[in-house]
């Protein structure tokens, strides 16, 4: 189905999130939506998907303007948004999540999962989606959750799919598989729209591109003749430059040490990070990265081993005490461990550090974060996804640290802001912090790290130079022993 936005405008109070935007989304094509954080990409998707009413303008389906466009209307028309933040129930299995809200029942009201399971399995084969329907969501990797989320809308008859940053949590290999699946859907006649901050994906996989800038449409057209630099200029005004790590002093003292650190899913015999050193941690998501960060931060208790900061054991110290000792942490799961929804931007900036000269410190952090709008009194929900991430980073980065453990620091933020965050990380290293950088963005790891380690099933399976070729890194991530 062809779906057009005609002069859509969305205002939140005095703020114009989307300003008179018209776009045409054609069936059989993959259309990418680009733009910096807060440009209005998610807003456009929400309006098209019927999740929020437009302030003015209309949605046009196959040439027919729809004056009423609610969630129910969108679903009836097969239009679905696949969110940046999943809406799955962790304690349910894949199949139970598929049924949720749309339970197939027999004549006597008994649950009949059978036909649905068959349908889901057929859809998975057709679209090339692998999901273990019997496994609990809590045990699934982010990639698998993503596929389940897509499967859910497909079995409900989605023919127009609006993806909000589906690749933000994925490695490039996973992202390529996702695009291959989208291509199959498009070839089957579906209308596919993808919001992304990764310009290389657009060049490699999209047919058309829409660029938003501060709520307005800055460009719409084909992608065939565009280079990454051209797209960057369209979306950001400029192509961001690469960041390099500061020179490493090999005699610098060890600032962060993991000594036989062991949790339920990770086991790191020994890892030493010097002052000023950036060690990148590569690995397919779900290989123990999250627990590693939790163990170091003090959020969960190790089964054995120690974490040492400047040579002193952090044994028995809680999160606050470790922070006071000079440890900074950024967790990968922003929604769970990063922001407090319902609270103000100010409270989110100062979380865990209330009191004292708060207003001034919050203002300084907000300014340094580059998040907009620069209004700390707003609820955090009023910030776009990328701007929320900047708030979380601002909390960790605003003081001098002995060691910094950051997971997915640039997830969801635009290329220019990402370069800015990388520069701040490099500067922190220059100032003497030891940095452990966990990321699914291999370019980021290779750009910023002095050396790379690879986690597989909770173990360090390889230690590599950052200029290692991508194939070797990929092999290591899949568990092949070090080359």
């Amino acid at each position, binding site marked *: 189905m062809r779906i057009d936005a005609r002069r859509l405008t969305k205002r939140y109070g005095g703020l114009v999130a989307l300003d008179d935007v018209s776009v045409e989304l054609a069936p059989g094509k993959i259309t990418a939506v680009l733009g910096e954080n807060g440009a209005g990409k998610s807003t456009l998707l929400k309006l098209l998907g019927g999740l929020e009413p437009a302030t003015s303008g209309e949605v046009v389906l196959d040439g027919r303007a729809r004056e009423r466009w609610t969630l129910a209307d969108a679903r009836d028309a097969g239009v679905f948004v696949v969110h940046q933040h999943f809406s799955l129930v962790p304690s349910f299995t894949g199949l139970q999540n598929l049924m949720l809200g749309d339970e197939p029942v027999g004549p006597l009201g008994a649950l009949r999962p059978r036909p649905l399971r068959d349908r889901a399995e057929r859809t998975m084969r057709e679209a090339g989606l692998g999901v273990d329907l019997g496994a609990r969501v809590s045990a699934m990797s982010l990639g698998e959750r993503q596929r389940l989320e897509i499967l859910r809308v497909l079995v409900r008859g989605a023919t127009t799919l609006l993806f909000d940053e589906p690749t933000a949590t994925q490695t490039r290999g996973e992202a390529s598989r996702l695009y291959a699946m989208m291509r199959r859907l498009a070839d089957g006649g579906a209308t596919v729209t993808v919001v992304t901050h990764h310009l290389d994906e657009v060049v490699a996989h999209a047919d058309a591109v829409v660029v938003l800038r501060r709520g307005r449409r800055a460009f719409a057209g084909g992608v065939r003749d565009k280079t990454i630099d051209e797209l960057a200029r369209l979306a950001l005004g400029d192509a961001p430059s690469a960041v390099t790590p500061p020179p490493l002093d090999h005699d610098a003292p060890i600032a962060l040490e993991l000594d036989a650190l062991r949790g339920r899913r990770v086991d790191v015999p020994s890892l030493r990070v010097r002052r000023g050193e950036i060690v990148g941690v590569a690995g397919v998501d779900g290989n123990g990265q999250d627990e590693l960060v939790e163990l170091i*931060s003090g*959020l969960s208790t190790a089964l054995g081993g120690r974490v040492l900061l400047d040579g002193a054991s952090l044994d028995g110290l*809680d*999160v*606050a005490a470790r*922070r006071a000792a000079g440890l900074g*942490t950024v*967790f990968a799961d922003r929604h*769970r*461990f*990063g*922001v*407090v*929804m*319902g*609270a103000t931007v100010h*409270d989110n900036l100062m*979380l*865990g*550090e*209330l*009191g004292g000269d708060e207003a001034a410190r919050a203002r300084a952090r907000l300014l340094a974060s580059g998040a907009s709008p620069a209004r700390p009194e707003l609820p955090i929900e009023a910030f776009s996804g990328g701007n929320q991430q900047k708030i979380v980073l601002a*909390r960790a980065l605003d003081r001098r640290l002995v060691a910094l453990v950051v997971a997915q620091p640039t997830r969801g933020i635009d290329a220019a802001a990402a370069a800015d965050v990388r520069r701040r990380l490099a500067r922190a290293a220059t100032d003497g912090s030891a940095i452990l950088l966990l990321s699914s963005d291999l370019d980021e790891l290779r750009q910023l790290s002095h050396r790379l380690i690879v986690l597989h099933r909770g173990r360090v399976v390889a230690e590599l130079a950052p200029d290692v070729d991508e194939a070797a890194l990929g092999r290591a991530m899949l568990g092949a022993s070090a080359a």
Partner: protein
Amino acid sequence: MTLTRPHARAIVAAAIVLLTFDLLVFAAGESPWIALSRGLAGSLGTAYGVGQVLYKATSLAIAGAAFSVAYRAGLFNVGLEGQLSLAALASGVVGARLGWAPWWLALPLAVAAAVAVGGAWAAIAAWLRVAFGAHEVITTILLNRLADALIPLALAHGLGDGGVRTGDVAHAATIPRLSTLTHALAGSAASLAVVLAVLTPALLDRWERRSIAGRELGLVGPSPDACRAAGVPVARRLFAALTLSGALAGLTACGVVLGYKGHYELGMTAGTGFAGIAVGLLGRGRPLGLLAAALLVGALQQAGLVLNASVPKEATDVLFGVVILAVAIAGRREEAR
């Protein structure tokens, strides 16, 4: 039905209440108009009636504040009933033994006993929650039952007069009735505890906005994981919130025992804790909201008593439920869509 505008919702809510009222009264064989005027006259139409409403609202406002402070931290304190009744017993027992003390010592001691016992009873649930993750709804319900069983036992074995009540509270430990200030309220149960009902929600609100611990309560509620990850002492905050909730339940008991009856007797506070939950939810934890909700529920309860002769209590209970639902619908905010 798309009732998006607040006004439209308020009108519909009011209409639902009136209709339900008409039907119920009619079914009981009364004229709705006469019942309405008698109910109004008995609750807000006479000085005595107003005094009774104030008395009920006093307990409800403090109990509502008690519920709210836990709710803010994401905890649902179903245990107000048990905390209230044990605290009431404590104030009665201590109050009855304070014949020797001057009022400036006796009253604070009796109040402190109630607050301490209410807080301690809630602290058990708080500890179970923080140390073992036991859900407070389950544990507080169990603790309610336990309190129900303990109180008669205590009254029968030493703490009471051997029957179903404690001895009389020493005069020095009582809270003066409002009727000592103005003759118009003669005979009504309202006491100076009304001051507590106004102050408690306001002070609590101030604490929740200004103090670090209070503000963190409001952050721990919606997102305990993010707070833990940022180094907020989540367990301590949860423990404090539920314990404070119980302590305020204890304060509620003072209005009843020290302000009105002058002793504790079995079942005296029954229902106040549950009504306090309704008030807390209706008032959304805001000071004026709590007071308004307490007055509303208090007036309904009093009107129900007045009509008791002609309209069965069950009918007024149904009406009470409908009113709460209606207010909840009318007050629903946009964000809750």
